[in-house]
């Protein structure tokens, strides 16, 4: 499960970085696309302006052309007819010509070529106008025929052609510029579209990659969640399996202990039996030695006397005490294994009453040792096995009265508190205490601590611990040498029968 959460966490930060990176890239693309659009707009505007300019120039040139042509037409009409209407019209056209020309000049002032054209045009026009003014002056002077002759000589149509050519050259120049600008415009449009499509493509890629990343992350998340759910589902099963394994192992050990201790007893019966036979055989043997000593002392050696009177009884005595001890040890193992196989019968218990009963049962011993035992009330209720709790309490109290500090009357307190779903029963004494190094050891079978000045085999606390485990509890001790000891039995407030399903 740790693996999953770690992978998720690292995946999350990695994916987060990737996503942020792509977002930045996407925004950059948008920015560039915006810049390109603005630039393209400006280019377009400039092109539009230039197109408009070209047409303006065309219109201005047309105007000049029209004025020049009309001026010529009205001059010729006046020359031929002398009609005043032509003269008036001619004056109007001639008056309008300079502003029209000025407009052309203004419009084309930015182009050196056009400026040259304009200058040339102006020269030609002023020549033309000078001729015209002269022919009008001749008519005004009454020399009409002379004016006509001058007109015929002046080749005004040639001059007009020249002016027309110049003006069309100017138009051509404008058109050429427009064409160049068209090409520029197309190029910038092309650039704009290129930039736009590249930005679009990058955006598309960013979008797809981001989407895929998110999708993958979501899928990972979903699969992790499924795995977690699966694990959750099988967790109880696994716990049950492990518990069953443990129970089986425990049962195996119990059975082993039972068989071993049982089979050890059989040879022990023989050892003890024949030792007793041997012992009883030493009695007649001793009598024989006594009688021989009395009647024929010379038959006896010192070795014989020693063997019959000392060595033999001594050997038998040691064999006996050893086998008796072995018998007690084997019985202890048997008792433990039998305890482990006992079916636990939980019932509501009054801990104080049980403690009182246990104390009453060993009242004599407690008084002999000069100790006082106090049971603190009130005590929480406990739902557990009566026999086991009784055994534990009487063992703990018995131990507390057993190992007193010399010269200090024993004071033992039994108390109990409820802590959530557990009940902690404490047996505290002011006895000789236990070296912290031995706090674990004392719960092991056949192990004891401190001065070995009290009878015992090191069985009581092992028995207590086995019982505590059997009740689903634990036991520990807090103590320092010379400062008493407190044994704390921690039991579930209500015994959970987890082992009975397979016990």
């Amino acid at each position, binding site marked *: 499960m740790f693996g999953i959460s770690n992978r998720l966490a690292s995946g999350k930060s990695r994916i987060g970085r990737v996503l942020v990176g792509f977002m930045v890239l996407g925004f950059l693309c948008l920015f560039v696309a915006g810049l390109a659009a603005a630039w393209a707009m400006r280019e377009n505007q400039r092109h539009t302006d230039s197109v408009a300019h070209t047409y303006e120039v065309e219109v201005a040139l047309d105007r000049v052309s029209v004025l020049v042509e009309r001026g010529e037409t009205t001059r010729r009409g006046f020359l031929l007819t002398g009609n005043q209407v032509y003269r008036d019209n001619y004056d109007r056209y001639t008056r309008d010509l300079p502003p029209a020309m000025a407009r052309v000049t203004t419009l084309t002032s930015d182009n050196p070529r056009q400026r040259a054209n304009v200058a040339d045009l102006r020269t030609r026009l002023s020549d033309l106008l000078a001729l015209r003014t002269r022919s009008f002056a001749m008519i005004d002077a009454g020399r009409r025929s002379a004016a006509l002759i001058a007109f015929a000589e002046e080749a005004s149509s040639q001059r007009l052609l020249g002016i027309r050519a110049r003006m069309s050259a100017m138009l051509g120049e404008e058109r050429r510029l427009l064409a160049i600008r068209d090409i520029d415009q197309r190029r910038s449009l092309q650039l704009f579209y290129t930039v736009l499509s590249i930005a679009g493509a990058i955006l598309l890629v960013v979008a797809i990659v981001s989407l895929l990343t998110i999708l993958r992350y979501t899928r990972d998340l979903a699969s992790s969640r499924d795995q977690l759910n699966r694990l959750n589902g099988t967790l109880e099963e696994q716990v049950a399996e492990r518990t069953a394994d443990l129970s089986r192992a425990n049962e195996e050990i119990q059975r082993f202990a039972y068989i071993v201790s049982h089979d050890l*007893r*059989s040879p022990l019966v023989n050892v003890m039996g024949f030792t*007793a036979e041997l012992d009883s055989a030493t009695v007649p043997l001793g009598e024989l030695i006594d009688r021989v000593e009395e009647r024929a002392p010379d038959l006896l050696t010192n070795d014989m006397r020693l063997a019959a009177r000392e060595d033999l009884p001594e050997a038998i005595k040691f064999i006996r005490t050893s086998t*008796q001890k072995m018998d007690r040890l084997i019985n202890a193992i048997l008792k433990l294994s039998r305890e482990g196989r006992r079916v636990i019968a939980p019932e509501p218990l009054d801990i104080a009453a049980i403690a009182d009963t246990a104390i009453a049962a060993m009242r004599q011993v407690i008084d002999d040792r000069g100790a006082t035992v106090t049971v603190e009330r009130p005590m929480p209720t406990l739902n557990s096995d009566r026999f086991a709790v009784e055994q534990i309490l009487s063992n703990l109290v018995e131990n507390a009265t057993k190992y007193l500090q010399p010269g200090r009357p024993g004071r033992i307190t039994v108390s109990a508190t409820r802590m959530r779903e557990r009940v902690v029963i404490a047996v505290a004494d002011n006895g000789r205490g236990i070296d912290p190094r031995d706090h674990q050891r004392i719960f092991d079978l056949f192990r004891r601590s401190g001065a070995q000045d009290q009878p015992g085999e090191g069985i009581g606390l092992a028995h207590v611990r086995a019982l505590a485990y059997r009740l689903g509890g634990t036991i520990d001790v807090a103590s320092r040498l010379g400062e008493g000891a407190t044994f704390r039995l921690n039991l579930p407030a209500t015994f959970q029968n987890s082992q009975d399903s397979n016990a």
Partner: protein
Amino acid sequence: MNQHQAVGIVMIEDDEGHARLIEKNIRRAGIMNDIRHFTDGTTALDYLFEAPEGPAKNGPALILLDLNLPDMSGTDILSRIKADNSPLRRAPVVVLTTTDDKVEIQRCYDLGCNVYITKPVDYENFAQAIRQLGLFLTVIQVPDVETVG
């Protein structure tokens, strides 16, 4: 007492030492009946049911039975002896064993065992128990064996 002399004692006990101690103490109690000792279940059953001089063919017997045998469980022998069609079903069986498991004791009585004695490891108690058994043996009546069909 003469009547009892005829009753053979069949001891099924795999431990030679135990057998010897039991025999010694029975003799000390003044029981002089013939004691046949078997160390495994197979030969013991063969003697009990098949041997021409065995109890099934020949007459009353008292059986001392140990439960922990190498080749079969003592309870198997007990159930064979106490089976409905067994000629020996009325023969008294004294289970004399190291097992003091309550369940095992109950099972033996259920199967028809007449006396169940746990061998005390302490020899004084052991010897006393056997001698008391010997005294008991001097007063109990053992029925004759039914002749087979």
